[in-house]
């Protein structure tokens, strides 16, 4: 019997917002680069996606810095990349932000001539996509490196965050595109279709992720906390219904019944719900993190401060 396993309390909404925005920025950027390769009616999408990458991740980093206990030392975050995932992540995210910023500059005033240099732009896109995937996956690996927290320390978490990041990234692009004049309605329609597949995939990954918690008591307690405990309302209403089922139904309806201009009618609420669900997913995963109990021979004790 293990008494009173308590969830960690050190990382809260600020870190959840950071993980979420890093994922969303990476996902939107990848969407933009893919659209850029497709060209034609996708040109508008490409600009929106690529332009979203840098600012989203930057705002995420500001959230991360706001959580630091001694922010004056933030610049030391990348000093130990040989062992620390925060240090490695800082490098990945910094490179991604620099590439994203350069990429946006291709469409801005002093560099406008560069927009014609398609080869260079595509090369930059491929390079940026590598680091975008690094950013999306790293947010899961970062938590996984905290080994005493079995709920985080699983190979499913980076996959879950990756799928969620791609899905929220696409939805962010769709959301902005719905209000932009230059975008092609057919492209929104196609993105909604891709997003449907991603949402279904995310549902499966989420189920497998929770299923994989059965091995040790602390991660069973984590799953309990999400499914029936204090975080159950946010998990069921925020993640499952608002974040997955509602956007899936709206996307399916929008894709199947109306084509063309009216797709946006469904795409906007679907995207808003799905993006909110992505943030709630990061929060419930963080809030559900429970440390392994101390094992002293036959005795097991919950950590006194977590």
């Amino acid at each position, binding site marked *: *019997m293990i*008494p009173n396993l308590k969830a*960690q309390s*050190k*990382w809260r909404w600020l870190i959840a917002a950071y993980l979420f925005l890093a994922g969303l920025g990476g996902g939107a950027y990848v969407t933009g680069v893919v659209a850029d390769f497709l060209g034609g009616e996708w040109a508008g999408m490409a600009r929106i996606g690529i332009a979203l990458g840098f600012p989203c991740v930057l705002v995420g980093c500001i959230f991360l810095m706001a*959580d*630091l*206990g*001694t*922010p*004056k*030392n*933030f610049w*030391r*975050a*990348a*000093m*130990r990349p040989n*062992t*620390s*995932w*925060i*240090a490695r992540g*800082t490098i990945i995210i910094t490179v991604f932000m620099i590439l994203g910023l350069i990429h946006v500059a291709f469409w801005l005033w002093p560099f406008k001539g560069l927009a014609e240099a398609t080869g260079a732009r595509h090369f930059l896109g491929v390079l940026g996509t590598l680091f975008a995937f690094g950013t999306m996956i790293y947010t899961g690996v970062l938590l996984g*490196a*905290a*080994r*005493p*927290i079995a709920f985080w320390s699983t190979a499913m978490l980076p996959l879950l965050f990756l799928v969620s990041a791609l899905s929220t990234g696409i939805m962010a692009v769709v959301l902005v595109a719905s209000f932009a004049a230059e975008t092609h309605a057919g492209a929104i329609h196609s993105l909604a279709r891709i997003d449907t597949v991603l949402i279904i995939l995310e549902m499966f990954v989420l189920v497998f992720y929770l299923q994989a918690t059965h091995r040790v008591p602390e991660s069973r307690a984590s799953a309990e906390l999400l499914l029936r405990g204090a975080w159950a309302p946010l998990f069921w209403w925020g993640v499952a219904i608002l974040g997955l089922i509602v956007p899936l139904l709206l996307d399916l309806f929008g894709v199947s019944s109306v084509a063309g201009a009216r797709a946006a009618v469904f795409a906007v609420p679907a995207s808003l719900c799905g993006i909110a669900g992505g943030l709630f997913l990061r929060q419930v995963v963080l809030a559900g*993190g429970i*440390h*392994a109990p*101390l*094992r*002293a*021979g*036959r*005795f*097991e*004790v919950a*950590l*006194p*401060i*977590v």
Partner: protein
Amino acid sequence: MPRYGFVIDLKRCYGCYSCQVACKAANHTPRGIDWARCVPAETGSFPAALRQMVPLICQQCAEPECLKVCPTGATTQDENGIVHVDKDLCMGCKYCIQACPYGARQTVDGWQTYFPDAEGDLDPYEAYAKARWEEKNGYGMATKCDYCMDRVKEGRDPACAEACPAKARYFGDLEDPESEVSILIRRERGFQLNPEFGTDPSCYYLPPR
């Protein structure tokens, strides 16, 4: 080079919390921070239930998880096995707190007085403790037990070991096979906490009766 370690004899500990209080007095830790602590544990159920107090301190692992995850280089390990946090280098990301299997690392945002009902300034003893804490540690960064290295350098035992009235705590050199701690670990089958994490703690426990 010695490898400093502790042996904590569970059958001798009766849970008087002297270690916890002695640590506070020696290290001037603020409210909410206890580098040494004593927690009650239970096992089994009636009529075969057992209670046991488990004293906890930093385990000064040979393979510290906190050192691995520290991104700033604030965490370092001395040759004698003691793991330190440099308060001027730590950025307070709290990654080490998540990664430590033993809950050894703690952080506070500021000094909260021990006597919230008292009026006026802090009393001189608490003001002294606050000044000492701010000089050697601080707020926002990770803090941890260092086996009272200042005292050990003066030839004394760590405060918790010196204070234990049950003589349940032994401090010594694990590298030396003839030291008291090494002999106790061999003779009384000393074990480490949560060996599954592969951290190889320098703190050993002797089994309860």
